[in-house]
Each structure stands twice: as C-alpha cells, then as structure tokens.
C-alpha cells in the first residue's frame, strides 16, 4: 500500500465521520457529561476523600487487576479458540461455534448464579477443587472466573473474521522460503492478527471493569479483599449519595479511558507498521 494522500480518493469520509461524531455525542458524550457534572457538585476535598478512601482504593486494585488478568487469559485462550474454529474441523464444531456468544445472552446475574453453583464448595466443580485447597467462589479467583466468562466472546469474535480472511499465500510463501510452522505463525500470522487481538483484549478488559451482576454473586465481597468498585458505587446509591457514586464512577471512567487509549494506540500502531 502506498502511503500518502491517495486514500482520500474514497468517498464518504465527511458523512461517515460526521454521523459517527454526532451519534457518539448524543449517546455517549452528553450522558457521560452528566456523570462528570454531578460529581462536580462535590468540592475537591470531598471528591478526593471519597475516591481515595482505603476501601475504595483497594477495590480499584481488585477491579482493574482482575479485569486485566481476565482479558489476558481471554487473549490467549480466545486466540486458540478462534484458531481451532477457523482452521480445524472436528465433530460438534458448529455447536461450539454457536455457544461462544452465550456470555452475552445470559443476563449477568444468571451467569453469576450459575458460576457460583458450579464453583461453590458444594458445586459441581467446587466439591473437587475445595479438597485440593483451591477455593474459587467467594474469593478474588471467583471474580477472575466470572470476568473471564463474560469477556471470552470479544476476543474470539474479533479474531475469527480476520483469521478467516487471512490470505494463505503469505503462509505458503513463508514455507517455500524455508520457514517452519512456528516461525510462520510467529512472523506472518500473529502480526496480521495482532490488531484484532488487541481490539478483543481492549473490549474484554473494558467490559470486565464495569461488570457487576455476575461478579457480585461469586465475589464474597469482603472489604479490602474481594470487593469490586461497582459494588461501592451501588452502596453509595443505596444511601442516595449520587454525588459520591458519580465521583467513584468518574475515577473508573478516567482510568479505563487512559488504559483503552493506550491499547488502541498500540493497535493503530501495529496496524500501520504492518501496512508499510
């Protein structure tokens, strides 16, 4: 692809971008600004003491830590999953393919209840894990399981179409030049998949940060240990403390925004370096 001005020969840029910005403003930016303005009804000291209370800070660690870890797990297994679905045929593949989206369709509370039923001490899996000293339900590990569950489809479904469209000629060329399969994957396939993989990672992470319904059942919600930030927002709302709730929400938003911005920068960068 030749760099330069040539791409602007394609029509529709002003319309597409204009509509995108209009829609985002209407659906995302104006409503989010309501959150920011509500939190601004606190003065700086109130704001700071709300968002930097030790329990709140501990909850950021739990929330962002488990969300990043879950997204990473999904990055690895989601890639394997997509690979298997695209490249191999095996019995039951259609069913597997169809069920990947399940985490979206189940109401999050149902997912939480189902996962707790599986991993609790008397659950299907929990009863085997507990004697081994592995406690899943009501620990941070439980949070990780729930977040992995809700994030999986993002990675699979963003990688899958790209992998499907991937030109086999490059791989063939690599092989004819003497590369082994791993080298081909490492230097040809993976770079081509990386933008999609990063997108999937970013989405899985973003979704995990805000998740409430499925986590709450399995987390145990012990302060400082397994209490997630969205729960603290809810408990503020229970006291009708809108300003306090939005203050914590603003912190979450800003942190997520920065992390997503960095991931997206990385994604655009890999995409450009691939085009050259």
């Amino acid at each position, binding site marked *: 692809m030749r760099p330069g001005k040539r791409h602007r020969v394609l029509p529709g840029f002003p319309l597409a971008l204009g509509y995108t910005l209009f829609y985002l403003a209407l659906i995302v930016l104006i409503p989010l600004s309501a959150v920011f303005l509500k939190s601004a009804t606190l003065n700086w000291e109130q704001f700071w003491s709300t968002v930097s209370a030790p329990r709140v800070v501990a909850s950021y660690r739990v929330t962002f830590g488990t969300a990043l870890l879950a997204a990473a797990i999904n990055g690895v297994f989601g890639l394997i999953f997509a690979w298997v679905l695209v490249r191999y045929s095996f019995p039951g593949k259609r069913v597997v393919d169809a069920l990947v989206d399940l985490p979206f369709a189940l109401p999050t509370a149902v997912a939480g209840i189902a996962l707790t039923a599986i991993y609790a001490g008397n659950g299907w899996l929990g009863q085997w894990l507990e004697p081994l000293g592995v406690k899943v339900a009501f620990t941070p590990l439980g949070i990780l399981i729930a977040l992995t569950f809700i994030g999986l489809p993002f990675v699979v479904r963003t990688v899958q179409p790209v992998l499907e469209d991937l030109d086999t000629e490059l791989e063939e060329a690599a092989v004819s030049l003497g590369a082994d399969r791993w080298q081909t994957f490492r230097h040809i396939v993976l770079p081509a998949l990386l933008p999609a993989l990063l997108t999937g990672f970013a989405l899985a992470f973003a979704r995990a940060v805000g998740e409430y319904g499925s986590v709450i059942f399995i987390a145990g919600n012990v302060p400082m240990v397994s209490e997630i930030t969205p729960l603290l927002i809810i408990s503020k709302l229970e006291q009708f403390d809108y300003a306090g709730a939005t203050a914590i929400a603003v912190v979450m938003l800003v942190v997520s*925004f920065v992390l997503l911005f960095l991931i997206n920068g990385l994604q655009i960068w890999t995409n450009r370096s691939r*085009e050259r």
Partner: protein
Amino acid sequence: MSGAVVSHWVVHSHRFETNAATREPAWVKRLLIAIALAFFALFLLLPLATVFAEALRRGWVVYFAALTEPDARSAIKLTLLVAAIAVPLNLVFGVAAAWAVAKFNFRGKQLLTTLIDLPFSVSPVVAGLMYVLLFGSQGWFGAWLLQNDFKIIFAMPGLVLATVFVTVPFIARELIPLMEAQGREDEEAAVVLGASGWQIFWHVTLPNIKWGLLYGVILCNARAMGEFGAVSVVSGHIRGRTNTMPLYVEILYNEYNFAAAFAVASLLALLALLTLVVKSVVEWRGQQQLSADQEAT
C-alpha cells in the same frame, strides 16, 4: 487482498487442513482442539447446563407454565421490541464509524476508537444513572419533560436508550479490525472504474464485511436482550409494562421462584442460539448461491 470471501470456515476449514503450508503437525492440532474444548466445557457448557438443569428441576410443565404466564409474555415482547429498535440504530452507527476509522487516516483516530469502546467500561448501573440524571424529574431535562407529559425514563424510550448505550461498541468494533485487515484496494479500484460511493459500499465493501457485520449484529442483539444493570435503573420494574426479560428473571429469583427464573433465563440463551441458527441458514444459502454461480461460469 483476495476479493470477496464468501466461503466460511465451518465448511472450508479443509482448505487449511489440506494445504501443507497452513497445516500444523497432528499433535499440535489435537492439543489445540483439546485446550479449546476444555475451555469451552469449563466456561460455556457448564454454566449453560446449570441454567437448563435448574430450569427443568421441577419438570417441563412448570417450565412452560413459567414462560406462558402473562408477565413473562409481556417481558419477552418488550425485550424483543427494545432489541429491534436498539440494534438497527447501532448497526447504522457501526458501519459509518468503521468506514471512517478503517478506510481513512485522520488525527484523533485513537481518541475516537477509545470513545467508541468507553461504554463497555462504564458500570451498567452508572449507565442507567446517567439517564436518571438527564431525564429524571430532577434531571437536566426533567422539568421540560414533565411539562410536556413526555416520559423517557421508566418507559420504553429509557429502556431503548440504556440498551443502545451499553451496546454501542459492538458492531463498530467488530467491523473495524476486519475492514482494516482488508485494506482499501478493492474500493479504490472501484473508484477508478467510476463507481459512486453507495455503489462501492453495496457491491464491494458490504460483500467483504458481511460475515463480520452479521457477527456484530448477533453479539449486539444478544447483549441488548441480556442487558440487566443499566436497564434496571431506568425501568421502574412495572410488571407487565416495563419489565424486560433479565429484570423479570431477577424478580422471579428474588421471589424464590428459581425454576421459573431459570426457565426465562434459558429462553434468553435459546434466543441467542436462534440468532446463530439464522446465521447458519444465511451462510448456507450464500454458499448455495456461490456454487450455483461457479457452475454457471
């Protein structure tokens, strides 16, 4: 880039498996399949089985009774209606956003994609709260809405807005990496041949992205029907009127009506599976079409 890829992996994975250049050793293949299936069983099949096991614990009669109750039926209708409004809105947005982001380079692209992702990271409860702050009786537009007797929250428009918000990123983010991977050579060739913008979109881009688009729609739809947190804040929970299926599930669960709660939840899972059946049919017909075309030439 090879032009329109109408083929699909479910049928065409053998094109990779028969090609020495795109094939792994058998043990690698088996290992990867084993890992994927184990992950599948642990994270997807087991929860689904739990849902159905719980739903059918009291037998089929209770199961169907739970689904045909008037409150359940109106929840099902409402959920389908909300999804039917929210998904097309995000579809148009997704295509426009992907066109802008994937086919053009411009300043602020990173910012724009991040903004598109942002709704995911907003805790659903906060997402609902935003609309209360905007349209609630003490919100920015509350007084005006009250004067004109026009309801947004605790009514249908609020449910749609909350659903649109939480599902904004799906279709756009599904299409962007796909369209980036495809590049713009096909479209540029069409420009050279004198095609108009809409012609390019309909005849060149759309065929290229249609599977990605379909996935986006399916995901968006699944999430739109399953959304709980944001919708719960703006619903008002009026039985038979503003209760969507996930909200209804929660209420049933809270009333210790576990079998009915899981029955409705299983229906949500089935609705999602139904969209995938539709996908398979569309695919199959596409392939029939393709092979018919190939025979004709």
